[in-house]
């Protein structure tokens, strides 16, 4: 405990020293009352205070072994009844088909084609928010699951008996297929389609092709291992959104909607193999995206130049460069994580690092969420205006005006740069404090002695400070 107060004292004292020269200004945020780096110091102080508060006030396990309570029949019937399930499944299938259709038949311009904004913003980012708020909603809307169930039901009716999966899903594979899929999606979005300083963006046609290929792959995997088994382990988007849904207060159990304490679902989420990798890839991908717009812009440019000087074609050089830096970002995030875990191992040398890593993987889900909100908040605010106005009325970009909103545009004045910065800062703070709480609860469950639990968590605190400072630094540089 003394360690926590000591840390607080040192950081506060350091914060009162004269400001370092050349503190980096944030463009468009000249009205910020403090230099941007001071927000990183503030975040560190908040985390230290939170750590002390958790150690003093959270003395017993609260989240592990949580209670789940079913919600009322009326609400359950409305949300999980047959009509709701059929409607959600049909909506998912229609949207999947529409993405492929607009991707193939629509204009090539990514900003005027429904498919690109829908997949990379509404689906990829919007569903994360919905998952945290309402639970695993993607499961209900999952188009591949809906199609597979209809086909399986039809097949069973035709042959007169229920079919079983020909292969048992190897448990040791855990979530690794989903991890590979996530890396693939991130590669498509940030490497194949990145538009940093050369034109190589993902075209709607490329996205449609990728969607069809992924759909085929998913149907084959479901056919081999069973629909629900593949959804529960290998299907990338199901696992990605379920990871964030584990933070939600809502959970469907045996077909019934119920309530649980917030964050508690995360305590059981990370059990299958590959869960840790999924969380770290989620954090690493956002880290890379943030870094390539700011702190890595120079190094990427210089590596790209070296590769083109060596004779590589510009597009190949660009994608190779981005791949290298994406791998470096993933490695950096993993290094920070394992640094914290090995520090924890010093406190209790009897536990293996891999065991500790798996035990604390779930605590990093709020960080993945915080990074996502901080980095993409403004993108969602702006692009969703496009999604629900001109992209909705003119999804193919051919001049249609289905709902009379084709002439609308994006109001970039809807939210100011300063407000965006405060949302980003708030997201980073809240996400890391929640991560500390999850780690603290797990430590109490793991080490019955509160003192050892507290000392193990000083390393979680250090890791959280690293991630929050890194996140704020990347944001400040990306917006500089």
């Amino acid at each position, binding site marked *: 405990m003394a*360690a926590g107060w000591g*840390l607080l004292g040192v950081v506060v004292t350091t914060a009162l020293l004269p400001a370092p020269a050349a503190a980096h200004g944030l463009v468009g945020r000249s009205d910020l009352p403090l230099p941007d780096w001071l927000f*990183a110091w503030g975040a560190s102080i908040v985390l230290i205070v939170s750590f002390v508060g958790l150690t003093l006030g959270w003395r017993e396990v609260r989240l592990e072994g949580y209670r789940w309570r079913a919600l009322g029949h009326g609400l359950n019937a409305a949300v999980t009844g047959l009509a709701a399930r059929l409607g959600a499944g049909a909506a998912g299938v229609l949207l999947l088909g529409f993405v492929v259709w607009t991707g193939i038949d629509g204009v090539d311009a990514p900003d005027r084609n429904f498919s690109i904004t829908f997949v990379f913003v509404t689906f990829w980012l919007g569903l994360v928010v919905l998952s945290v708020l309402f639970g695993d909603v993607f499961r209900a809307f999952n188009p591949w699951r809906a199609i597979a169930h209809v086909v399986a039901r039809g097949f069973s009716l035709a042959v007169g008996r229920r079919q079983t999966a020909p292969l048992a899903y190897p448990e040791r594979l855990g979530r690794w297929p989903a991890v590979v899929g996530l890396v693939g999606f991130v590669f498509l979005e940030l490497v194949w389609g990145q538009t940093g300083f050369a034109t190589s963006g993902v075209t709607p046609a490329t996205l449609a092709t990728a969607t069809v290929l992924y759909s085929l792959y998913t149907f084959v995997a479901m056919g081999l291992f069973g629909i629900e088994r593949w959804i529960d382990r290998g299907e990338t988007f199901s696992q990605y959104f379920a990871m964030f849904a584990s933070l939600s207060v809502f959970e469907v159990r045996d077909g019934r909607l119920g309530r649980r304490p917030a964050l508690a679902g995360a305590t059981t989420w990370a059990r299958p193999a590959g869960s840790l990798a999924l969380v770290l890839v989620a954090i690493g991908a956002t880290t890379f995206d943030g870094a390539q717009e700011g702190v890595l812009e120079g190094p990427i440019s210089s590596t790209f130049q070296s590769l083109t000087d060596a004779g590589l074609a510009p597009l190949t050089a660009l994608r190779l460069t981005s791949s290298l830096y994406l791998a470096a970002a993933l490695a950096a995030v993993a290094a920070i994580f394992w640094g914290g875990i090995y*520090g924890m191992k010093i406190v209790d040398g009897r536990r293996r690092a891999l065991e500790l890593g798996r035990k604390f993987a779930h605590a990093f889900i709020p960080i993945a969420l915080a990074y996502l909100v901080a980095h993409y908040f403004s993108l969602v605010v702006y692009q969703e205006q496009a999604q629900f106005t001109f992209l909705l009325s003119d999804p193919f970009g051919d001049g249609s005006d289905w709902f009379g909103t084709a002439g609308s545009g994006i109001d970039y004045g809807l939210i100011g740069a300063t407000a965006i910065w405060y949302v980003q800062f708030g997201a980073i703070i809240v996400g890391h404090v929640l991560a500390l709480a999850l780690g603290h609860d797990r430590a109490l469950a793991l080490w019955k002695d509160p003192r050892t639990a507290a*000392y193990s968590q000083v390393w979680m605190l250090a890791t959280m*400070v690293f991630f929050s400072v890194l996140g704020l*630094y990347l944001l400040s540089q990306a917006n500089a």
Partner: protein
Amino acid sequence: MTPVIAHAGHWLPYVIPAAVVLIAVTIATIRERRRQDDDEDSPGGPAAP
């Protein structure tokens, strides 16, 4: 001067809190580990939690 050093004014203020916390955490851990080792080496064995 390398770009990293040239831009130290940008990243150094961010590194300071992380470095301070890392040093404090390392010291706290070493002290706690020593205490645990002392408890185990004492004639009465490890102290009850």
